[in-house]
């Protein structure tokens, strides 16, 4: 590939996106409990994917529309699947980290089971 400014920008965006993906993976390994892992997993992978897709769009402008579609899809579905998963985990009583300070949801559910 030729080093035009646009290509260079695309490659840099791609590396930045991949770095966020790696960060997401690292958070997934390091975080102490499920909810924190979901947080690390969702946020970092969403931004990471969006940046990577933007980078590829700079490298291959013809693919722009389809990449935009993939990006929009990820942007909408990623938080939804995280929320559904977090809710399922909370309802099925997954263990929370000992660092957890409060849990209003458990309190409210205890009041009216």
């Amino acid at each position, binding site marked *: 590939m030729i080093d035009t400014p646009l290509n260079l920008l695309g490659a840099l965006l791609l590396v930045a996106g991949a770095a966020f993906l790696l960060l997401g993976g690292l958070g997934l390994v*390091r975080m102490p409990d499920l909810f924190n892992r979901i947080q690390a997993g969702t946020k970092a992978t969403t931004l990471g994917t969006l940046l990577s897709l933007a980078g590829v769009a700079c490298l291959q402008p013809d693919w722009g529309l389809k990449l935009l579609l993939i990006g929009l899809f990820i942007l909408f579905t990623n938080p939804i699947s995280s929320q559904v998963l977090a809710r399922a985990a909370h309802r099925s009583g997954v263990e929370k980290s000992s660092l957890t300070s409060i849990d209003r949801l458990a309190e409210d559910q205890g009041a009216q089971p």
Partner: protein
Amino acid sequence: MAKARASVLLFATLLGFWLLLNGSLATDVLVIGVIAALVITLLFRDSLAVVSEFRATPHALITAPSYVFYFLKELVRSNLRLASIVLSPALPLRPGIVKVRTRLKSRMGRLLLANSITLTPGTLTVELDGEWLYVHWVTVESEDVDAATADIVNGFERYLEVMYG
């Protein structure tokens, strides 16, 4: 009247996605897209009404881009903060689940709010219950309902209220 407008919006959304998916404006693609979008609109108008709750007033149309911009800014900020937490050896966490309230009434508005919360600094929507949202927070800063609402919800609600109500 409102129903007709909702149908038009739904049709336009569906057709827009079809065209993005195909990435071409050839006649056959266009014809199939129009037919498919029309059929889906007629069959599922009521169950897909969520898509067309967007108000499409001039004010809402101006607000939408600033909402997207604010959202992207928060997304980047959230990632930088998460990065600093994940990369620091001590892993400075103070997680908890707080309760916040939203003024939004429409389903799409609430969905977008929940999604926005999930993608922004250290917060993750765990449960939606009417006007109440339960939010997991990596570093709890305020346990009080009103203070947490001010911290987490208000930034997005400002925009979404105009767009969806």
